[in-house]
């Protein structure tokens, strides 16, 4: 599809892409988790279209970021294992979204609400509040000199296991990695997010992988996820290329400026910024819930 938006609306989308890209550049996380609520709540774009177009536009910046790095064959090992679960997860996520779309409307509080909208907004709210609260809690614990313990999932050694010395960790269970990928894929497919927002904290805190390695692994996974999600969403005609281009254009410029600004901030400020940003996005979703049900 092409031409969902009028020219002046496209300019607004470029502006949104710029602002979100700027924030993403500053805080170093994906912008999809902000873009979908903004496109849907602020610009009134149908939720399936907002999800699909956002998933498609993620391919642009992630391609650029991946090309800017030299990825070795060994570094591909963990992302490819996680991708096994992600492939199934993304397909499952988009299927769930399509099924919810076909389900039609549900009655809540004497109001008719689209089931797909309810599902996406509900999952968003849960995820954003969880990530926002955890980020702020983690920073608080760090400041108090009592950092959050890492590697909860790394302790489970369900066979087969393998050693990932290139990541600075010992043995990790392959089924656990696949399940982690499956859950990330379902969320990414359903919400149109790149998955980095879940992957990076997951790899760092649950699997005890160092931040730099986690970010590179996440980048590879994000590229594969968004590639698959784009195929699936485009097949269901949930992508508007005009919207995608407008988001990429504004986002690239904003992200560049944002990443320049980020070098002036400290790690803890960045992480608490991510927390507050997540809670801000959650408040947008909550507002949309209120609008739906009032």
């Amino acid at each position, binding site marked *: 599809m092409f031409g969902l938006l009028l020219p002046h609306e496209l300019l607004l989308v470029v502006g949104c892409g710029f602002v979100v890209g700027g924030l993403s550049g500053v805080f170093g996380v994906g912008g999809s988790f902000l873009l979908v609520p903004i496109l849907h709540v602020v610009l009134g774009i149908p939720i399936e279209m907002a999800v699909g177009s956002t998933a498609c536009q993620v391919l*642009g910046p992630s391609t650029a970021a991946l090309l*800017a790095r030299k990825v070795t064959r060994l570094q591909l090992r963990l992302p490819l294992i996680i991708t096994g679960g992600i492939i199934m997860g993304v397909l499952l996520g988009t299927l769930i979204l399509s099924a919810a779309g076909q389900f039609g409307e549900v009655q809540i509080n004497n109001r008719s609400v689209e089931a797909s909208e309810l599902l996406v907004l509900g999952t968003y709210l849960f995820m954003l509040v969880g990530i926002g609260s955890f980020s702020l809690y983690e920073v608080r614990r760090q400041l108090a000199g009592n950092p959050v313990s890492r590697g909860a999932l790394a302790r489970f050694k369900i066979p087969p296991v393998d050693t990932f010395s290139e990541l600075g960790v010992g043995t990790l269970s392959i089924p656990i990695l696949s399940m982690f990928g499956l859950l990330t894929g379902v969320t990414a497919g359903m919400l149109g997010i790149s998955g980095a927002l879940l992957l990076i904290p997951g790899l760092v805190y649950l699997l005890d992988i160092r*931040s730099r390695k986690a970010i590179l692994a996440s980048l590879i996974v994000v590229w594969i996820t968004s590639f698959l999600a784009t195929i699936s969403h485009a097949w269901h005609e949930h992508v508007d290329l005009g919207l995608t281009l407008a988001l990429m254009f504004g986002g690239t410029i904003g992200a560049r400026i944002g990443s320049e600004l980020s070098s002036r901030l400290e*790690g803890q400020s960045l992480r608490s910024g991510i927390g507050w940003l997540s809670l801000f996005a959650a408040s947008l979703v909550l507002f949309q819930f209120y609008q739906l049900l009032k």
Partner: protein
Amino acid sequence: MLNDKFLPTLCTKMPLFVEKILFVIACLTVPIAWGIIVNWVFHRLKTATPNEDDSGNESQDEPVIEYYI
């Protein structure tokens, strides 16, 4: 008998199928091409300007900024 029903059905359904495939390819090509162009432009800009930031002022392990993933 089979051709009477099958071929017209195939002819009317094929364009929609092909259209969908082409749309999927376009949705993949546009952002990837964008990423390649952006990377090329920034690479050119980086090589064109003298690098003044190589003063060893590296950040610690924690916040690595990956732009807009």
